[in-house]
């Protein structure tokens, strides 16, 4: 547990919570990233303006962090090209079919104690643990 960072995770989580509250109280919208992106693919859902604005803010965040902190966040991605493509497809399709992701179900829905979101969160957490186990300990990729 040398990399255990509960405090920064707690602070980061609180920021995400504040973000969800702002979007709900001011705009009346759910801060679910897959829903915000997916809604752009469906013109009938409307709201392109706020959706694109939210995504711009999301995408610009590392740069804002950079100007404030003097360093870009360091990330490590070890997945191969086929794994990246398969993972992306599953995340895109699955979040739309399931109606949400880590933010919409995992944070906003669980905070409302929505039965759908509680089930979805348990299922995607379990599937995530299982997939990581298979990739790391059975296949060894």
């Amino acid at each position: 547990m040398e990399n255990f960072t509960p405090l920064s995770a707690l602070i980061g989580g609180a920021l995400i919570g504040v973000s969800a509250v702002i979007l709900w109280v001011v705009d009346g919208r759910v801060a679910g990233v897959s829903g915000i992106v997916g809604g752009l693919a469906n013109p009938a859902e409307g709201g392109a303006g706020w959706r694109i604005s939210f995504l711009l803010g999301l995408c610009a965040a590392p740069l804002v962090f950079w100007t404030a902190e003097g360093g870009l966040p360091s990330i490590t991605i070890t997945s191969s090209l086929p794994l990246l493509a398969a993972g992306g497809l599953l995340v895109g399709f699955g979040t739309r079919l399931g109606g949400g992701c880590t933010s919409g179900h995992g944070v906003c829905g669980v905070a409302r104690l929505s039965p759908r979101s509680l089930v979805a969160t348990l299922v995607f957490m379990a599937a995530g643990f299982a997939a990581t186990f298979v990739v790391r300990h059975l296949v060894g990729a």
Partner: protein
Amino acid sequence: MKQSFAALVAGLLFGLGLVVSHMIDPAKVLAFLDIAGSWDPSLAFVMIGAIPVAAIGFRATRGRHAPLLDTQFHGPSRTRVDAPLVIGSALFGVGWGLVGFCPGPALASLVLGRWQSWVFVAAMLVGMIGYRFLDRASGLFFRRYSTFISPR
């Protein structure tokens, strides 16, 4: 315009939350999901930090009929736990566990310039558009279960 500004601020705070918590880093996410390895439970604290804040904020709007800058709340319309919810969430979880990216962190990482982020996001968009295509093609099944009604 004001709506979009609020959304921009919310998106920025959301992204900063992902950066500060290291949830933007797939290696950190996989260390959290790898219970059988050298498990790093840090990212559980993202939810522990986010959920109470969101719960208190949402509670404060109870009894209000509309948000500050719109005529109505656009909450989720479906309440039933059904097969598409479970199947979709399982597929999402598998994809998350394969790479360590969920939609928010993947998008926020684009600006860091790793080709892997761009491949993942491109595939994710294909998956979302693919769902939309199937949704229209087999209207009866998928449309019944689409989660968000179009409010206007």
